[in-house]
């Protein structure tokens, strides 16, 4: 009888150990893909003292052997001043970041920002402050193809709005 119990616990223990290992490995992978805590902290510091945090979006990217595209729609309010911070430091390779006044499907949209044409404020960090009032902003990520080992990462965009006297 004791042996049956012993056998059961041995098998169950083996299973638990494997599950715990698999879980910790997954946690480690997820943490290494996106360092969101430090990135958001850095953005918060960049908003001080004029801007309040408004919104953010982490976009997780798996680089593949084909080109990929992702668009974010951002509603804005006329009369508000915004600061948009892109942090690409958790990406294993560069992507193109563009901002437009209209969505991808629009035939007459105007480009407002292109990461290729601006200087980083620090390594992997870009800032855009819209100069004209807008009701919508469309953020496009163009992800180039890659070969060999699949790499993962994330880009985080953080929006702040200017604090005004109430």
């Amino acid at each position, binding site marked *: 009888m004791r042996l049956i119990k012993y056998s059961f616990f041995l098998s169950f223990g083996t299973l638990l150990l494997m599950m715990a290992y698999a879980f910790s490995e997954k946690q480690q992978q997820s943490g290494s893909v996106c360092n*969101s805590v430090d990135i958001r902290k850095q953005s918060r510091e960049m908003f001080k003292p004029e801007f309040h*945090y408004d919104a953010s979006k*982490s976009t997780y990217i798996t680089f593949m052997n084909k080109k*990929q595209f992702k668009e974010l729609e*951002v509603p804005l309010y006329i009369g508000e001043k915004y600061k948009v911070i892109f942090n690409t430091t958790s990406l294993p390779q560069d992507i193109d970041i563009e901002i437009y006044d209209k969505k991808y499907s629009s035939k007459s949209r105007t480009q407002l920002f292109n990461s290729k044409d601006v200087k980083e404020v620090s390594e992997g960090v870009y800032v855009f402050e819209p100069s004209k009032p807008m009701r919508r902003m469309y953020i496009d990520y163009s992800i180039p193809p890659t070969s060999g080992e699949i790499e993962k990462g994330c880009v985080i965009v953080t929006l702040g709005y200017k604090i005004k006297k109430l």
Partner: protein
Amino acid sequence: MIVRRLIKPVGVLSLSLLFFYGCTNTTENASETQSEELVEEEVMFEEDDMDVVFPSLLQIATIFKRSGLDYTEGLANKPENVSQYESQMSQSFNFGVYSADLAYCVLNNQTQKSILYLNNVQTLSDKLGLSSVFSAEDLFASFEKNINNQDSLLYIISNLQERLDEHLQNNEMDHMSSIYFTGGWVEAMYMATQSSDASKNSGSSANIIEQALILDVILSALNKHPQKDNTLVTESINALSELKTKVDNFAFVKDRPIEEIPLEEIVVTDQEVEVIATTIAALRNKFINS
């Protein structure tokens, strides 16, 4: 004898488990490499894949406050209602409702009520598995310590929003942001449209309409929600779709993309504000009585 008989099956079972794990792990690793061939073709983009970045409820409340809307006693959802929300979806919509109430009270220096609403937001966040958003520091101590310093309270609320966004995005719960936002947005619109200033103050009216112009974004997110068949979500989609149709037919909107309408050209009648007020009040009542 029994020992011998059991050693074999136990050994086989343990080895099988290890073999099975080894295989699944190898399969995962194998999928981490790909063909060397690069595909340069243009990737077609489906608009359904587009993500929305919702503004904060604090920003919406701030815009209304700046436009001249003052505090009206009794407009916010009753704090004691918090105990009646039992389903996950009811708690989620009312998490947004109470978050908007919290911002409304802080902006109007209703200090004691602010603590009540903060308490309600935390109660619902615990039920919704969002406890870590509040547990990183002693939020209540910090809030009470700064209770007479509005700037500090606003900073604390915006910090809360940031932690909520981070939690949702890092835990594959991002789809819930559309529910929290809808609850809060409807509550903010309810307070703005029910305020005695709404129809007399042109600044407030213009801002109410300005908010109504993001209805398409809210609807797009709700329509993509994995629980869009839930009664409350369906009722929200129906009510907000109906409202969007009405707003699209307002004289100043007709035949123009909303991106191209300047704020100064938003001219609304009291009747149009009333149209918005009625739909919003009906939907808000569904949330708070759910």
